[in-house]
């Protein structure tokens, strides 16, 4: 990893003097704006639909703007235990997962980057190799393992497989291995043990990677549908994605009047998490994408 990065292409602006540069820039902006509109288009519908009356949402043909603005649909969402409980459940699970992943990834990365012990490199490669097996292949067997362990229908069945991320360990290890050895040596000279070095020196230095990992693992956890679906039976334990799909047909009618506002509310936690950590985010992506 280069410590001194050359000035990025996009920062230099690369302008040619004269009108042709201006023209090019306008064309670029037009294309981008057009595509941007297409990308954002579905969100307009999500947003405006949430402020419509129940009847207005399900009336066909659909209209973009509400005939009558109301906060009623949000009230109905909060009043519905089938939506509120799962929302909280998802948040609890996701935050727990993030904490676990950050802890295991940073510690794991540190151990493989800096500490010596027999079999270190072999174990690291094996951990990386686990990413080669897709989750779908482990779906049925892992379900059986959880059943044997008596963990079905509990949050442990979701948290335990999610607690360690090979990708996270890999990222942290890459990031930690470029921390200058001198810092490490100096701390050792002062009598710091390995764990103390981890807490006092390593952790503060890898904040960008931890931020990126926080976003990734939060999204993965909040988003998860298949595994929680398979593992959870108890209505009180349902996560938000499961609850949203259960709304699809009660009594044969699709409850879009509830789905729309609930979906909009479901977008809030990931958005907030992303905004909080995004400063470190692009750095994290660049590290994970380019290196190797």
């Amino acid at each position, binding site marked *: 990893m280069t410590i001194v990065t050359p000035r*990025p292409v*996009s920062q230099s602006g690369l302008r040619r003097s004269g009108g042709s540069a201006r023209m090019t820039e306008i064309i670029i902006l037009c294309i*981008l704006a057009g595509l941007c509109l297409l990308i954002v288009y579905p969100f307009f519908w999500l947003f405006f639909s949430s402020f419509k009356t129940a009847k207005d949402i399900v009336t066909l043909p659909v209209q973009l703007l509400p005939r009558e603005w109301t906060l009623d649909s949000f009230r109905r969402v909060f009043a519905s235990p089938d939506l509120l409980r799962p929302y909280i459940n998802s948040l609890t699970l996701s935050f727990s997962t993030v904490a676990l992943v950050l802890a295991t990834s940073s510690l794991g990365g540190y151990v493989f980057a800096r500490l010596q012990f027999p079999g270190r490199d072999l174990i690291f490669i094996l951990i990386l190799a686990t990413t080669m097996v897709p989750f*779908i*292949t482990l*779906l049925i067997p892992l379900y059986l393992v959880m059943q044997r362990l008596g963990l079905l229908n509990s949050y442990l069945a979701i948290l335990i497989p999610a607690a360690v991320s090979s990708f996270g360990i890999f990222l942290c290890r890459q990031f930690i291995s470029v921390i200058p050895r001198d810092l490490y040596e100096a701390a050792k000279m002062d009598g710091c043990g*390995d764990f103390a070095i981890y807490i006092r020196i390593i952790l503060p230095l890898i904040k960008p990677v931890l931020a990126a990992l926080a976003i990734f693992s939060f999204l993965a956890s*909040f988003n998860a549908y298949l595994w929680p679906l398979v593992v959870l039976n108890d209505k009180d334990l349902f996560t938000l994605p499961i609850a949203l799909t259960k709304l699809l047909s009660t009594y044969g009618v699709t409850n879009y009047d509830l789905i729309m506002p609930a*979906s909009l509310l479901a977008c809030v936690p990931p958005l907030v998490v992303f905004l909080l950590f995004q400063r470190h985010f692009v750095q994290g992506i660049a590290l994970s*994408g380019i290196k190797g």
Partner: protein
Amino acid sequence: MAMIETQAGAVDATRTPTRSDKATRRRVASRLGLVVALALVVYYAIIFVLPFGVSIWLSLQNWDFIVDPKYVGLRNYQRMFSDSYFWQALRVTVTFSAVEIAAALLLGLVLAFLLSRLRGARQRTFMALFYLPVITPSIVAVLLWRWLYIRDGGAFNNLLTALGIPPQPFLLSSEQALYCIVVMVVWTFVGGVIVLFLAGINDIPEHLLEASMLDGAGLFRQFWHIILPLLRPIIVYQVVVSVIGTFQLFEQFMFLAGPGFSTRTLALYTYQLGFQSMDLGYGAAVSFFIFLALLVATTVQLRRQRATFEY
């Protein structure tokens, strides 16, 4: 002289410690390292190795979850090759992946390049908007698009009729349904692709592009002859990751399903076999096939990359 055996060899213990002794001490195993490594090994053994082994074992059984499993050898795999549902699911999966990856790659590259021509706040604003679908919960996106694709009076068809185009059946047509899902998935992931490629473009030293500009190269030339070749490793990486990802997409195919089995992927087929038809042995076999297919695809991709790319 009292000799002590250390990891590095015999050392005279009566000497005062010198610099090289400190070097030797460092080679003694770290206790923290051992503890953590051991914990990880146990963890992965239970969460990964065990299920993987069970997966193989299960694929050789016939089991409906009620009666005891019965060993049937490779019969599940033989059944796979004569199962028309399997071949259809394979076709659907491969078609979907190929089209989606091509579209996302192309769009992502072009948009990343265009974005790289902008500066600071403008670039970041566009970037944030393109990235919105990535951080939207996937169920939200799926349900939203399901609603948009409603044929009679749905948002997309309204837009089409307003533009003078006849309304489309979308998810109600076995020809269109899969491509409707492609559009939705491209929409979801193009932001991530753009971020990756933009980072790659930023790594390109600016003097290369400046030199080309002095030689009179226009935007398109710059893109084709400089940026594209230098982005090759990232493109390959993105393709590999995308193949692995698209083969495992699930909720999109469950809730944006087209008529019949026109949108049933291998992943969906596995789930239905294991948790609906209660045909666990066969389901395990299909899911193991997915693993093998991905392994082959990934290896082939990486081999080709190493063979052709030179810096």
